[in-house]
């Protein structure tokens, strides 16, 4: 049975607002990165100076967490829409749980990897 247990906030409104706020953050970050690549000649020194500056480290961290929240809300929604008994039979709950765990694992790996890149540990 589809439930909201693994929903990020368990509130439709909070998920809705969070997904839109994170979308704005992702769009702003995309513009910052694209602007950098369009304006500044790309060298190793220029890249490290830009992305390892304190403001960009904070912005990159915010963006990485925004991706996690944005992606989880979207992937959870997809799973609860399509992985249902009506579509995939009696194994729906097991399949959906496995799908959600795989998504969470990928997002966990992604955030750890991002933090290593951003904060150089």
């Amino acid at each position, binding site marked *: 049975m589809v439930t909201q247990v693994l929903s990020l906030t*368990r509130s*439709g409104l909070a998920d809705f607002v969070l997904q839109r706020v994170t979308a704005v953050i992702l769009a702003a970050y995309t513009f910052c990165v694209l602007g950098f690549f369009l304006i500044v000649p790309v060298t190793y020194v220029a890249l490290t100076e830009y992305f390892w500056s304190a403001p960009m480290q904070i912005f990159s961290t915010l963006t990485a967490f925004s991706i996690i929240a944005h992606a989880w809300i979207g992937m959870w*929604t997809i799973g609860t829409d399509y992985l249902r008994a009506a579509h995939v039979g009696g194994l729906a709950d097991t399949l959906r749980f496995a799908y959600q765990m795989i998504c969470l694992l990928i997002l966990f790996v992604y955030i750890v990897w991002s933090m290593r890149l951003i904060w150089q540990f």
Partner: protein
Amino acid sequence: MQVSVYRYNPDIDEVPVMRDMQVELPAGKDLMVLDVLELLKTQDPTISYRRSCREGVCGSDGINMNGKNGLACFTTVSQVVKRNKLILRPLPGLPVIRDLVVDMTQFYQQYEKIQPYLINNDPPPAQERLQSQQDREQLDGLYECILCACCSTACPSFWWNPDKFIGPAGLLQAYRFLADTRDTATVERLANLDDPFSVFRCRGIMNCVAVCPKGLNPTRAIGKIRSMLVQQGT
């Protein structure tokens, strides 16, 4: 004209089939699809469908005509027929009872959830609760819904989660009472909708608007409910 009709009698048939029939249409007249169904019934009295008022008021004869939901009594053959073939199916997404008759239980359960009645615990006045003309105008485009289910059964979100997503028809009615100045249960009504499924499964694809035989706009009503939820929650 060739008419292909969805036939399914669960007492006899293992699986549904599309059965082709021929109908002679009177020259120079653009019949309603319901008239075509009546002609088919003279050929085969076992064809089952719902109908009542035959003038777009009762909402009984919602069916899928050449891929688009609508009221059979309200839709002319020329509006839907393609390559001189009319394809009639039951409303999608709901269990079929027989032929073009669907089980609307899930649809009405969602309708029931939104408490489709005025809630006002203030002592009633001697005659009736009055509204200004401006307040009454807020209900235009909402109260006209006849609950034919054409919109909800055209909505993929309702197909996927018919037990949790209210659906466009129910949400249009939910906003009809949220917008009613005589109703005093706005906070409670909004609280009942603030879960990940009831309202927020709407993806705004506007199938509901495209098929509504009364020309209503459930997507706009859903947007207004979301705005009210955001305003209340922030």
